[in-house]
Each structure stands twice: as structure tokens, then as C-alpha cells.
């Protein structure tokens, strides 16, 4: 994150919950603007917010109507808070352009994870450069730099790294990884994958710890201290 705090607009009528969410978001380093009713929110949306956290059951204008109006003029990410409402309410929210929803009750870290996920900037530079910590991957030239040093990778090793790097921090299942990088006729299947990953880790040297094994799932690329 840059030093500038990202602004979040919270629309929530419940005083206790609202205060709690404000505290949680501020503690996580976000700037928070809290609006307690639908009508005020209608006048002030979208404002300067980078993300809107929107409760639906509001006094004044209903949350979904706010969302509908907001989507006419803005693409700001909207995270809807829903209190176990009917499926059609959630579905309608997504149809109207909500990016995500969170069902009450939720844990604060759940909220923060969703907010971070929505505000995460894409790592890929326009020219196909992926940068993760001390690792730089040029997908166009198929080159990898670990701490500035070029590393020779086989085609499969590079594809494994590039596939994981497209979604840093997210676990990728062995099935999906194998399907993406292996030619089943020439390079075998999932079991062969482990061998390729093992070799990739070695070649990355200290940065090999960036590639982690996820139990029961597959692999993940994340920035870690070597």
C-alpha cells in the first residue's frame, strides 16, 4: 500500500456494529466515512471513496436502490452487508453490480480480507511484468529475475511460476496447475508436477521459499522471508 490511506465509505444504521466496523477499518489503516441512513448516503454517494461497504436494511432509501443509483455513475467497488436475507436479495445485489457480499454475522478479519481483496492492485504491469518481493517475472520474454539475477527455467518450470504469479497469495490446486502447464501425453500428470516444483524451488535459491506447498490443495506463490 502507498502511504496515502484508502478511503472507505460505510453505510450502516446500527450504531454498535457501525462503530465497530469503523474502528476495525481504521485500525487496519483505512480512512472511513460513516453514513447512518439511506437518504444521506444517496446524497453523498459515491464521493471520494475507493470502496463502499453497504448495509441493505437502512432507514430511508433501501440499500439495493442506493446500489442501483450508484451504479449509474460509478464503478467504485461495493461490498454488501447482508443479514441472512433471502437468496433473491443477495442475487439482486450481485446483479445490480455489488462486487461481493458478506453475511452477518461476520468476523472482523473476514471483512478486512474482503476489503483488501477488493482494493488489491493488480501486480501485472502493462508490459507483462509481474513483481513479487525480490522476484520479477517477464511473461512476454519468459525471463525470471531472482534478486536481480536471471534464472534459467525449463518451459514447464516457467509456466508453473507464471501461473502461480498471476494470483499471488492464492492457492492453486494441483489439478488446475497440471492442466495449465503439463501436456498429459509428454509430461505426465499431477505426480510429475511435484518434481517440476521441486526443481523450480532449487533454481530459485533463497527465493524458493516463495513457492509454498498448501496441504490438500497444491501450491501458492507468496512473498516470504527466505
Amino acid at each position: 500500500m502507498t502511504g496515502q490511506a484508502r478511503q472507505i465509505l460505510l453505510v450502516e444504521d446500527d450504531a454498535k456494529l457501525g462503530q465497530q466496523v469503523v474502528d476495525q477499518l481504521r485500525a487496519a489503516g483505512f480512512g472511513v466515512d460513516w453514513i447512518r441512513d439511506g437518504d444521506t448516503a444517496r446524497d453523498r454517494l459515491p464521493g471520494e471513496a475507493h470502496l463502499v461497504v453497504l448495509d441493505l436494511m437502512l432507514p430511508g432509501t433501501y440499500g439495493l436502490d442506493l446500489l442501483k443509483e450508484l451504479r449509474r455513475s460509478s464503478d467504485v467497488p461495493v461490498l454488501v452487508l447482508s443479514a441472512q436475507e433471502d437468496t433473491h436479495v443477495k442475487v439482486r445485489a450481485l446483479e445490480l453490480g455489488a462486487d461481493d457480499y458478506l453475511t452477518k454475522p461476520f468476523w472482523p478479519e473476514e471483512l478486512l480480507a474482503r476489503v483488501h481483496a477488493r482494493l488489491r492492485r493488480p501486480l501485472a504491469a502493462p508490459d507483462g511484468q509481474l513483481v513479487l518481493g525480490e522476484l520479477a517475472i517477464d511473461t512476454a520474454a519468459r525471463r525470471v529475475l531472482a534478486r536481480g539475477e536471471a534464472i534459467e527455467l525449463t518451459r514447464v518450470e516457467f509456466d508453473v511460476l507464471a501461473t502461480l504469479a498471476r494470483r499471488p497469495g492464492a492457492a492453486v490446486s494441483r489439478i488446475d496447475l497440471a492442466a495449465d502447464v503439463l501436456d498429459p501425453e509428454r509430461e505426465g500428470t499431477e505426480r510429475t508436477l511435484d518434481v517440476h516444483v521441486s526443481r523450480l524451488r532449487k533454481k530459485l535459491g533463497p527465493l524458493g521459499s516463495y513457492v509454498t506447498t498448501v496441504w490438500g490443495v497444491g501450491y501458492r506463490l507468496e512473498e516470504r522471508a527466505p
Partner: protein
Amino acid sequence: MSLRKTLFIKMVLVMLPLVAVGAWAGRAFDYDARVDALHDFVLARMENGGREECEADPERFPPRFNRRPDRRPPRLRGVDRPLPDRSQRPNGGPRPAGPPRGLPRIELFAYDATFRSANQHAPDFPADLRAALEAGATRADGRTQEGRVVHVAQRMAWTDGPCAVLCAWLPAGDASLSRAQLVPVLVFAAGMVLALWFAAGPIVGRVRRLTGAVRRAADEGYASPIPVEGRDELAQLATAFNDAGREVRANLESAQQREEALRLFVANTMHDVMMPLTVLQGHLSQLRDVADVGGAIEEVQYTTSLLQNLAAVAKLEGAGPTKHETDVDLGALVARVAGRHRPLARERSIELEFAVPEQAVLARCDLTLVEQAVSNLVHNAVRHNTVRQRAGDGHVAIVLTCNESQSEARFELEVLDDGPGIRSADLQHILERSWRSDEARTRAPDGQGLGLHIASEAARLHGFELTLREREGGGLIVRLTGPALGRRSPE
């Protein structure tokens, strides 16, 4: 049996006695007609020169018809059939040639006041007629013993001489004569039945239309009345149906209103309960850094899960499961479920991970029900992973993949854990248990409980497949599969 056939059979059953009565009445009329005709014949014969003829030659009276070819044989009104049985001639006398076929044959003989005839061919005076005349009657009639010949006796105005009483015989309507009367009756009856067969057509048609209208009305929940044709009994039946339909509709609406009120109450209560639970979770989360609140976090998570399962049961057990199907992004669903259980997993030192394909995997389903189903699977996996929890290195993983073949795409959602697993003997029937059973509600450490059954029911409702199997190396793999709409690039 169709209405038309029933009517036909009933008509036949009604017509049979009518035909019998008709035939009997025909016979009776026939007899009376013959008797009257015979009396008329005798009187006319005697008044038009018959007396003189008789008294002049009583031994040969009456001269035979055939000896007077210039005279037409007598003909009786209403009797114009040939007399078929010639052996039944009552006087038994020789008859070289009778009247032409097609005409009745009358035998006439004269008797004196003591009922004796001068004609040797004359039969004895019938005893029944004689009794009647002696009792003072001037005329009498009856049947011969065989019952096939009508005879009448007529006392003349004069009381002396050999021709004081005349007796005439005429064959009565015999069996064939009855058939003759039966035929028109039978034809009439058959005509009636046929007429009924065709006349029933429009009525049967109306009954059929009415049946169709009632069925359609039932299909539409008696929303609209059925059309009423005419003012007869069928119209009254249609009106009665409409009345009954209104009653059913009113009851339905009342039940729907009650159900809707209950649904609203549950939704509002759910909302009211979830708000403080959210605040409570926030407080617990803050306390985590300064106190051991692991037990409290678990209880809150359990309570939340119970409440959400109650809502799911209400959906699954309502008056017909209320399923609101849309194209659901299963990857986002898995991420939400994982996020919801991370705090509990962390409290239990269980690593909870998930992987979903880069492209969205969409499936047609009810978002809330399927999310609750997956949530239950994950909650169970985290909650029951007690062995590893103690060791501090338990794992739970959610893996979503999509298998696309040329013909179809299927999603596979697996929840894996390295917990104690379920004995293979229990694997089969664990899904069969009803959630209403005590066993399902038991909060025993190893009981998979309500959650699994809701997952199972939700899967069944969507036509998904839920299977459990032991994991190699210990633990359990629960797999939910179903048709996917294919992978789609995120927008």
C-alpha cells in the same frame, strides 16, 4: 364405464319391462277388439236376414262362406293377419277351402234357448258362456281352454226357436300375433335407446368440458372460476365447483398468509439475532489479543451455524422447498465460506486453505442453500478435527475444480481434512439419517449432526451428488459434484 354406456345399459333395463307391459297391453286390447267385433258381426249377420236363414234351415246354418263365392267373407276390424294354425279350428268340421289367406276365420253356430244346436257340426255350447247367459247376461265372452280362441255368445232379442243364442269363435291373438305386436314395441324401444345414445352426446360433451375446466382450475390453484353453461343440473354442478373452489382458494390464501407472516417473522428475527452476534464476534475478535476466548469463539460460530441451519431447514421443509436458482459463482462462494471459518480454524490451530480455478465456475443453484451446505461441510471438518488440533497441525482444505468434457461440464468441490474421519461402516448411512432424529441433533463430539444432513438435502434438491470417503493417510473427504455452466473468465 363411460356415462354414455351407463345411460345405454340403464335405458335397456328400463325399456325391457316397458316392452313386456306393452306386449301384454297389446294382447288385452286385441282380445277386446275381437270380442267387440264378434258381437257386432253376430248381430249384423242375424239382423240382415240371418234369423230367417237360420230358422229356415237350422241344421245347415250357417252356410259356409266358400259356398257363397259372391259374398265376401267377413272381415274384422283390427284383425288382418292370416290365421296360422289351421289344426286349431274349434269346430273341427271339414273345410274344403277356407277364406283366402290373409283373412280371419270365424265359426258361427246357432243354438236354441237350451243351448242345443240343430247343426250336427256345432260344438257343445261353451260351459263358461252358458253359465254367464244363464246368470242373465245377454252376451258373454271368453277363451277356449287352450286360450287361443276367443268365443262369444249372444242372446238374441227373440227367445224361442233354434236360433235364440248364437255362438261365434275366432282364433285369439296367438304367439305369433304377440310377436306381431312386439315388433313395433321393440322397434320403438330400440329407437328410444338409439335416440338416447345420440341425445347423450351433447350432455357427455358438457360433462367432459366441465371435467377439463375443473382440472384446469385445480392446476391454477382455483384462481379463476370455471365457466357455467345453461341453468340445468350440470350448470348447478359447475356452480358448486366454483363455490368449493372459492373455499379452497380462501383456505389456500389464508395458509399462504400465515406462512408468509411466519417467514417474515423468521427473517426479521434472524436479522435481529444476527446483528448482536456480529457485534459479539467483533468484541471477541478484539479480546483475542488479550485473553483466551477460543471457547467463546467456538460457541458463537456454533450458534451462528445453528441459526443459519434453522433458516435452511425452513427453506428445505417449507410447503415445497423454496429454491431460488441463479448462476452462482462457486469460487466466490468457497472464498466466503473459507473466510467465515478462518477465525475458528485459527483458534483450533487448524490450517484452512482453499483453491479455486482462475476462471469463475458457475453452477445453477440456490446461493444461500448451497453456501450453507458447503459452510456446514467446512464447519464440521474444522470442528471435528480434534486429534490434529491437539497436535497443533490440523488441516482443512477446500478445492474447487471444473471438469469440462465435450458434452458437459461438472464442478467438483472437495472438503478434505486430516481429522479422525468416519468409520467406513458409518459412511453409508450417515447421510440417510433424518435431521429430526435425536442422533442428528446430538452435539456429541463425533456426531456430524444437523449440518451434514442439511448439506445432503440441499444437494439432493439441486440434483447434486454428495459423497463421503476416507482420505488416504487419515481423515475425510466430502465431495459435492454437479453440473456446471462451464468456466468463465472473470469480467
